[in-house]
């Protein structure tokens, strides 16, 4: 009985302590998205001379027939999936190397983090020059190596431009992934590997049977962070290609920006925001489900 009262009290204190944080969260997260949802039920654009006119779900209906929205959605998905997978593989490799002890490891770790520390807009400009068709380093290399005869217009072709922006994004955010994974690697006790080796496991086996399962939580966290960031990518692509050529690298964020800032179609822009938000929430929910499962696995492994 007494412990029950104690628990109740504790719970109450807990709620009181959590309330300020909850209020802030509501103000910062819930209010804007609810406001966007509210706005998405109205038409407010140049046609209405920027006045709010209630139009129900007309904006959502319009979205269904909007080929550009679906194209940007598929562009965003391609960008996100490819860049996150490549970053994860490269990040894992770098983390494994940095986890070994070798002379000068501290310096190498610091240097490998540098791309992550650069402002995105700045490196976007730099990468746009790297891929420039006339003066770019990439074309210069390929021509000197004799792999191509005439320079390739990297940012002038939809597929090549997508590859270029993915390359730039991978360069920038791989260090972030490898940092997260490195932290995870260091939390794995060395005696596990020792025991595994005594049992006769090869290093590949110990990577698959010890490292991967124990690293799962970090991998999922890295995935989650990177997924959310990539899905909302704006600055890098805006600077490198502006969404072109022919909309080949236009992501949802860039489309929303145009809808609001260029077309002044506020109601429709809000509907796009709400739809993208819901998709993102769904994707994160799936990832969190994985995360909880991998935690159970890891606990079971112990």
């Amino acid at each position, binding site marked *: 009985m007494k412990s029950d009262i104690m628990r109740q009290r504790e719970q109450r204190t807990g709620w009181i302590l959590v309330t300020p944080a909850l209020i802030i969260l509501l103000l910062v997260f819930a209010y804007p998205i609810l406001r966007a949802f509210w706005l998405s039920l109205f*038409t407010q*654009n*140049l*046609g*209405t*001379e*920027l006045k709010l*006119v209630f*139009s129900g779900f*007309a*904006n959502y209906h*319009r979205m269904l*027939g*909007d*080929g*550009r929205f679906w194209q940007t959605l598929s562009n965003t998905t391609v960008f996100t999936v490819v860049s996150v997978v490549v970053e994860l593989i490269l990040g894992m490799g770098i983390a494994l190397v940095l986890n070994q002890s070798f002379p000068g490891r501290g310096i190498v770790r610091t240097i490998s983090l540098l791309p992550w520390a650069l402002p995105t807009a700045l490196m976007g400009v730099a990468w746009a020059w790297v891929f420039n068709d006339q003066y770019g380093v990439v074309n210069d290399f390929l021509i000197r190596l004799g792999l191509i005869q005439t320079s390739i217009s990297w940012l*002038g072709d939809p597929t090549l431009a997508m590859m270029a922006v993915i390359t730039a994004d991978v360069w920038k955010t791989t260090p972030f992934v490898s940092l997260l994974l490195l932290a995870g690697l260091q939390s794995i006790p060395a005696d596990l590997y020792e025991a595994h080796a005594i049992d006769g496991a090869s290093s590949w086996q110990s990577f698959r049977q010890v490292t991967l399962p124990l690293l799962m939580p970090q991998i999922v966290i890295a995935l989650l962070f990177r997924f959310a960031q990539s899905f909302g990518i704006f600055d890098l692509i805006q600077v490198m290609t502006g969404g*072109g*050529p*022919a*909309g080949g690298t236009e992501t949802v964020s860039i489309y929303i920006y*145009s809808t609001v*800032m*260029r*077309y*002044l*179609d506020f109601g*429709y822009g809000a509907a796009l925001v709400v739809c993208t938000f819901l998709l993102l929430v769904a994707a994160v929910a799936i990832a969190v489900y994985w995360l909880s499962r991998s935690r159970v696995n890891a606990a079971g492994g112990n």
Partner: protein
Amino acid sequence: MHKINSPPSWGWQKPPTFLALFTLTLVAVLFLFILPALTQQPVVLTMLMQGQDIVNWKPFIQEFEQKNPDIRINLIEGPFDSNLVENLYTSAFLLGDSPYDIINMDIVWVPKFAAAGWVLDLTNKISPQQLSKFIKGNVEGGRYRGKLYRIPHASDAGMFYYRKDILEQAGIKPPQTFEEMFRISQKLQKQGKTTWGYLWQGKQYEGVSAMFVEVLAGFGGFWANPDTFEVGLDKPEAIKAVEFLKSTIASGISPAGVSTYGEEETRLLFQSGKSLFLRNWPYVWRLANTAGSKVKDKIAIAPMLSSVGKQGGSCLGGWGWGIAKTSKHPQQAWRAIQYLTSEETQRKFILETGLVPSYKSLFLDPKIVTQYPHYPQLLKVVEKSALRPAIAQYAQASDILQRYLSAAFTGKMTSEKAMTTAASETRNLLGSFKQAQ
């Protein structure tokens, strides 16, 4: 006692403080409001312009300031890209208190700026007589729903360039219809007189919409009606227009690359002497006639082509001035616009810059014609105009059209499928607009 005495002493100390304050206020009022009025502090007008235009306009603005000592114009240098300038205006107006008084507007911004209520209605400021001196299409481009928002100061129009040397040698008259152009190109290509027949802009950007408006008009079709919101992109005429453009690629008259070419790519190809015909803007004339150009003195211009029995037209571009609704000095701004768009100012401006006038008379002005002998012919081009639809959401409608034209030109979609989808998306866009009315 002392304490009782003190309040009165405080009491008679008050008047001097009050007096001092009063005098101070008077002096302040005098300095802040009355003196400036007496000495006529000049009114400052702010004006944003594209970087490359500033150089051309600066001397004329200085001249205006000399003649009007009560007005100063603060010229702000904007980016070179007109899209970025539009963004600057947009964010300034959205934030409410725009610093700009005089707005330099591209023809396609007028419906947007007017519908958003950012620019002043100038309809009653200018007489119909004065307006009739300008190129008609250029004035129409400054209107939105019957009201005038912009006074044109420069024209721009799609032009049909041809190689007069090759045509003269072959004894062929310049074509007037698409069909003639097609035949002449094929014939001369077969004879090996030219590599390509016809160059046009097919890249996915605003230029493709401008080019398509002309072909559409040439086949008797229309894009969208700004009054009824009717969309004509899936009508047989529009599909025929796309089919015609695709057939120029399929039959080898135009290189397959036209679907990725903008103005510059086509100009360079034409200038290197590789093509018989070219659709482009007036700026090409000067560059193609400079030393080093392979077609120097070998080219001529003609009004835009049309299909047999149809009346085509050139897509009109061009710039003009309007006044921001938030401007605190609309009268002074109007005086500046009047001065800068006067016929005399424009004559001097054209002679110095070689741009295209907005006054009809200047195309035939003897001084200008001696310097630019092709202007009388240019007038014929500019007067036969086809306008991009004056709908408030023009930018959105144009982006839709660009996407599907590009899909059709690159063969990702059939002409019919592309145009039906473009039409349905445009209807969707304008439909949401109509409901809201």
